[in-house]
């Protein structure tokens, strides 16, 4: 094997009392696509931040192409040939792709009034596009682009500096649809043939086999395994087991044993112009209903309409058999509907506040007595009980929500839902950015909820919908695609969501 382009040996990092990394050995060869795996808190992010110069290692050595390097700033890392595309790339939405790529590097001249030579910029962009044939109109505003196009702009931005040898991609597929993911993989393969090494972070284990040449697994602050994908295939290693350090059962809990009870939520002919039309569905007590739909299929709008955050233009909603007019989330909560929103950070949580603040928010009436006074002892006991029930880790009621991993933030939202005592729970994209360990726990919680309530899972992850739900439908361009009498197989569901057709 060729000499590695990037090597780390015995790298360590400590934050206060927490040893985030210890003795990490890591290397990546030229033109290698290398996946970096690990549950949240395993040290992946810390390691990536060290590689990209955002934070400094405490000990150990980094070498690039055989020469030892010390990164004090992100610029140092870029000069050494290591570029990073963050998980949510910071692009300027109302500037063109071209302007974004060269933002801050428009000209070699110095000073506030250095002239920008547009022709030269366009020539440089052409050269970039010639090297990496991306089907992309760079004159378009970034705000108008699809998620994968934005990712491509961010990658080109990273590569616009000469001499980049290693590209780090932090969860690039988390916001992409299955089709878009293929486009991104095509781009990655191109980069690879140009000799650029890619370090690639993902929670989607099947992607490792689809795109990576090799992978490293981080666990508890150290790199516990490094092997090629071929080796892993041959020896049938379980990636999930490596990540967790223990054997995992099925991620998905068993399906409902008993037949479903009465319909708690009934939609009839529900519609909103340009978003979705004629949606008729029933969610029953005792079952999990799964709705699979790609980004833009109307899933998000449908969930918000059921939750009263968007008005329905057409159709009726019945809860417990009675027709209801849901004019606000308050009305939906009063009717017993709780939404676990798709974007928990912006829609689900007061991030700078602890669980004790977030858990009771959707049912403040339960938390208070006469004069609206909070019953603080009872509230604390309830919050303690519920956070224990959802297995919040660490089990702290006073740590700000922002201090938890994605999976545990989701558990706080879940505890908030349990506190609201709803009997219809709608989960939108419940496990985006959630590692495999926490994912299994969240699915188990859904199953537990479904014993006494109706649960609806709306997701663009087909395996998730098929794995966790008892009954599935697909949403394609705002129209419901329902299966025949036997229900959807996994492939039929995928087909229905992507093509809008039921397989014969």
């Amino acid at each position: 094997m060729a000499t590695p382009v990037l090597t780390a040996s015995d790298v360590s990092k400590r934050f206060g009392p927490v040893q985030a990394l210890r003795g990490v050995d890591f290397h990546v060869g030229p033109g290698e696509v290398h996946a970096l795996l690990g549950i949240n808190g395993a040290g992946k992010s810390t390691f990536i931040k060290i590689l990209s110069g955002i934070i400094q290692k405490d000990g150990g050595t980094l070498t690039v192409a055989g020469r030892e390097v010390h990164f004090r700033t992100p610029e140092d890392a870029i000069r050494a040939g290591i570029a990073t595309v963050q998980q949510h790339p910071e692009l300027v939405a109302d500037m063109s792709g071209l302007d974004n790529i060269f933002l801050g590097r428009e000209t070699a001249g110095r000073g506030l009034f250095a002239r920008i030579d547009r022709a030269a910029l366009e020539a440089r962009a052409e050269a970039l596009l010639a090297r990496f044939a991306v089907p992309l109109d760079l004159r378009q505003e970034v705000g108008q682009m699809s998620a994968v196009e934005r990712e491509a702009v961010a990658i080109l931005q990273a590569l616009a500096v000469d001499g980049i040898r290693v590209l780090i991609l932090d969860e690039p597929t988390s916001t992409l649809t299955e089709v878009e993911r293929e486009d991104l993989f095509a781009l990655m393969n191109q980069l690879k043939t140009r000799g650029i090494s890619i370090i690639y972070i993902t929670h989607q284990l099947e992607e490792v086999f689809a795109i990576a040449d090799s992978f490293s697994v981080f666990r508890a602050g150290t790199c516990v395994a490094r092997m090629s994908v071929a080796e892993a295939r041959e020896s049938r290693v379980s990636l999930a087991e490596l990540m967790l350090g223990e054997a995992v059962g099925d991620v998905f809990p068993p399906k409902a044993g008993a037949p479903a009870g009465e319909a708690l939520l009934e939609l009839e002919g529900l519609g909103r112009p340009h978003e979705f039309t004629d949606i008729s569905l029933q969610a029953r007590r005792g079952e999990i209903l799964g709705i699979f739909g790609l980004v833009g299929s109307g899933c998000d709008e449908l969930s918000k309409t059921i939750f009263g955050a968007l008005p329905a233009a057409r159709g009726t909603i019945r809860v417990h058999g009675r027709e209801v007019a849901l004019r606000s989330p308050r009305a939906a909560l009063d009717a017993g509907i709780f939404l676990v929103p798709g974007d928990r950070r912006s829609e689900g949580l007061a991030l700078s506040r602890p669980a004790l603040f977030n858990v009771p928010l959707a049912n403040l009436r339960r938390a208070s007595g006469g004069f609206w006074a909070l019953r603080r002892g009872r509230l604390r006991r309830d919050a303690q009980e519920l956070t224990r029930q959802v297995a919040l880790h660490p089990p702290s009621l006073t740590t700000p929500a922002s201090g938890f991993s994605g999976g545990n933030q989701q558990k706080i939202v879940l505890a908030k839902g349990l506190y609201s005592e709803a009997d219809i729970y709608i989960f939108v994209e419940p496990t985006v950015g959630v590692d495999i360990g926490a994912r299994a726990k969240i699915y188990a919680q859904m199953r537990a909820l479904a014993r006494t309530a109706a649960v609806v899972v709306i997701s663009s992850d087909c395996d998730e919908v098929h794995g966790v739900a008892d009954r599935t439908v697909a949403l394609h361009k705002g129209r419901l695609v329902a299966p025949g009498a036997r229900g959807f197989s996994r492939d039929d569901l995928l087909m229905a969501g992507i093509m809008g057709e039921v397989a014969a």
Partner: protein
Amino acid sequence: MSRLNDHFRGAARVLGFVALVLGVGAVFALIEPRFLSHASLSGIARHMAANGLAALGLTFVVIVRKFDLSIAGIAAFAAMSMGALIAAGLPLWAAIMGGLALGAVLGAISGIAISYFELPDIVTTIAVGSICGGLAFLYTGGRSIFQNFFQSGITDLNDARLLGLGVSLWILLAVYAAAWFVMSRTRTGMAFYATGENPVAAHFSGIATRRFVALAYVLCALCTVLAVLLILAESGNAETNKGANLMMPAYAGVFLGAAVMGGTSVVATFGGILLITMLLDGFALMGVPYYYSDGVVSLILLGGVIAFSDSLREWITGLGLLRPRAARKSENRA
């Protein structure tokens, strides 16, 4: 365990604040012994009552993450309106009710415009404040109003004492106690905080966020009216410039308190305004001209907010990291 830790951290902040207040008091007392005289201390209490009420009103607005720049204008309009009502021979309570009703309407105008019609808060409140500043001249064309003031009994709010403390201080303490209870012990307070932290998440939790934003402006205007009422009581007349010195101390009190206590709250504002009033009166006693007072307050505000900011703390801890090289090495080995 973590609960004890939180209590400890909260107590440490309060103790730090008390130490800061005592320290500032000691410095003034050393430079100017008259600072601790009865006249000076009761002056601080009176000024604190007016400043503190205005700052409390602003606290509600800052908690929902908005700004209110109409305080000075509303204070001036309310001062002249209450003055005109008193001069017209109305009883004091009726004049106060009239002032509060006016404040509620003005606050509601800003609040509804900002929450329901989504107008930008800064522009809206500057506009409302300027309009009020102009309307203050409506009654007398800008001349002072003093008729009936002594007969009305308004000066008792300033002069009368109850259990050895001025009535104005009792009003302040009562209003603060009520505000503290609402904001940190009731579900209404949680709804206010949730609205400020993340309006979308609060809306999705069934909280009527717009209503709470509008309510914050109404409360701010009501507190401003009470503040200017105490100023009228102290001076015995109503003038159009009566509210001019309320706004800067209010902002300084809210943000300095939040910086020291680690978040905006009723208690933090109380501490902040105590500190600001001490500094203002202390400087006045030392002969710093009044026209520098806004400048002095602003300087303290900037200094305080920077001193307690997270980035400065990080910078200082960053310096600390350079220190124990040997210690860190042994930790790494462990």
